[in-house]
């Protein structure tokens, strides 16, 4: 589903990713771990097409198409979803209105009829209980005044509505207490399916107790320095990142 070949990415004129190779197949969950400044979030943001990240080399194919050639919104409509580490507050834009626009943008792209208000409300009801999204969260402005946990739940809720092919979760666990972590993880696990893939970016192994990955990759100094199964996450938890970082220079966030 996703082929990343020798991806190099600059931010603020500094080379952060120095050649990433990653192959994600449908149905798989890949965890990207690594110390602060290793380039984890840069990878997530570069995949989503954030304008502050400049791709200076390499290739990314998403279902055979050149992902790097697409606008951020085309990537989203093609089925790439990024759960933001810091979801943006958007004053004045009603959350339900925004969600409907997002769902219909994807449906239109897929050649499906757009949902009307009634159909959309049905979809909302179907998906909202799992993530404990209540009416008030839908009627407030997007993320405005949401707690940290509410923001992350809202991200995963959007993922549930948009049903992407590939979801990239950028430190979704940061700032969550254990209850919120469980809700968010349940939401993700309910979405796991043979035709959907996940890239879970995290600093801590804790999230991976709930969202169990098929593969774990350790990023350090802008490169993947070690890959393995879920045991690798356990090992990192025990030993810390120190033993893996030898030889790799950390770079700025």
């Amino acid at each position, binding site marked *: 589903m996703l082929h990343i070949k020798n991806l190099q990415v600059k931010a603020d004129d500094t080379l952060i990713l120095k050649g990433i190779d990653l192959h994600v197949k449908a149905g798989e969950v890949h965890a990207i771990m690594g110390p602060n400044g290793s380039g984890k979030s840069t990878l997530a943001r570069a995949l*989503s*097409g*954030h*304008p502050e990240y400049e791709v200076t080399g390499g290739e990314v194919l998403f279902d055979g198409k050149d992902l790097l050639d697409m*606008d*951020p*919104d085309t*990537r*989203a*409509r093609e089925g790439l979803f*990024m759960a*933001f580490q810091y*979801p*943006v*507050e*958007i*004053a*004045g*834009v009603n959350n339900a209105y*925004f969600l409907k*626009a*997002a769902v219909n*943008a*994807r449906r239109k*792209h897929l050649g499906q009829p757009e949902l009307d208000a009634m159909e959309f409300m049905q979809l909302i009801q179907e998906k909202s209980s799992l993530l404990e999204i209540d009416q008030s969260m839908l009627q407030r*402005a997007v993320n405005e005044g949401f707690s940290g946990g509410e923001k992350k739940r809202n991200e995963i809720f*959007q993922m549930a509505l*948009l049903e992407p092919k590939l979801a990239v979760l950028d430190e979704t666990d940061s700032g969550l207490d254990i209850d919120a972590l469980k809700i968010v993880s349940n939401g993700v696990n309910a979405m796991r399916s043979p035709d959907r893939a996940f890239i879970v970016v995290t600093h801590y192994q804790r999230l991976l107790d709930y969202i169990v990955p098929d593969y774990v990759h350790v990023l350090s100094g802008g490169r993947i320095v070690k890959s393995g199964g879920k045991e690798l996450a356990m090992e990192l938890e025990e030993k810390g990142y120190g033993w893996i970082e030898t030889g790799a220079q950390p770079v700025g966030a």
Partner: protein
Amino acid sequence: MTQVAEKLQPWIAAVEQRPQGAPRWLQDLRDKAASRFAALGFPTVRDEDWRFTNVAPIASTDFQPAPDAPVALSDLDVLPYSSAPFRLTIVNGRFSAELSRLHNLPKGVRAGSLAAAATGHGDVVPRYYGQLAEFHSHSFVALNTALASDGAYLYIPDGAVIETPIEILFLAAGDPSAVTMAQARTLIVAGDRSQVRIVETYASLRNGTYFTNAVTEVFAGEGAVIDHYKVQQEGLEAFHVATMQVNAQRSATVSSHSFSLGGLIVRNDVNAVLDGEGAEVTLNGLYLADGDRLVDNHTAIDHTKPHCPSHEVYKGIVGGRARAVFNGKIIVRQDAQKTDAKQTNRALILSDNASINTKPQLEIFADDVKCTHGATIGQLDEEAIFYLRARGLTHFEARDMLIHAFAGEVIDRVKIDDLRQGLEAELYAQLAKDLAEIDAA
């Protein structure tokens, strides 16, 4: 003779030709205003209140009084609030019965020509006309007071509740090559415990250069509730200078929403005096400044008595090479304890060549008060645009959604559905043009 004085000469000649034949009190008022105008002349950028708005383009133009102009009823169908159930129409400063819809107004309500009311409602009109809007230090108010021959009069008797909105429509009409001016004058008197919803519209059926000089006086009696909307949609080469003066008596509630969409040079002064305990005033505004336009909003809320809340939200969208000015003054007098005043003004800058000058101005002489103000000026939030795009909305859809959200905070407060929809359609059509220009550049 100085250049300024030279420019003033035709204006002084104009006020010498002021209308005659009104009742004694009104004629006296015109005389005083005329001599005051001659003494004041026009403000210059050396006057603090006019620092950013140079009215020389108005002062140096030789405007002729706008003559009568033919207007058909069907001409009014294109206006943003064409469905107004009651309408009081003024063309080029003079009341038109044919273009008005005033049948079946509730008993005791008076709506019509201000000139007629000056004699016909002689026990009420002289108590307010020219008594609220102060012309001693305001030359445009003085000019209007000297020259206004007619205008709109709306009187709501004590205790009357008018649920149907009433529109006061000022139309500029006539030959587009004629450089004309009209004095737009309005007096609204809402009796004790009365309730009324008013839409004051300035619209144009002509192109070209013309000048509307408007003065609106609003008196809200004890416990009166006035919900007022001003829609300014003058021609794009027009000058619009307006003063609205509100006096709110004990426990009166006055809200006024200003929508400024047209005009080349626009200056709106909205002044409200909280003149009785527990009176409450809301002044909101939304303006669009684009092209080469200048839009200046000055508001002043004067808290003179205790326990008065005031609320103010002004928002502007500034694009092209336009300039915008916002000055929000709040005065809290010594007696006005327990004042609760809140002012917010925000501007969205769409282009690099647009600019805004904004200033909150608090003058507080009481010690037990709550006053807050905040001003933000900025461009569209790039992170918000990216977030929306990451959810599949195009750049244009994301930008439109953010701009609509920005304007919505003011537009959504319009309680008259047809008016709100008309304003939205007008604003977004203009914005679509502006954004298309930006995208083409």
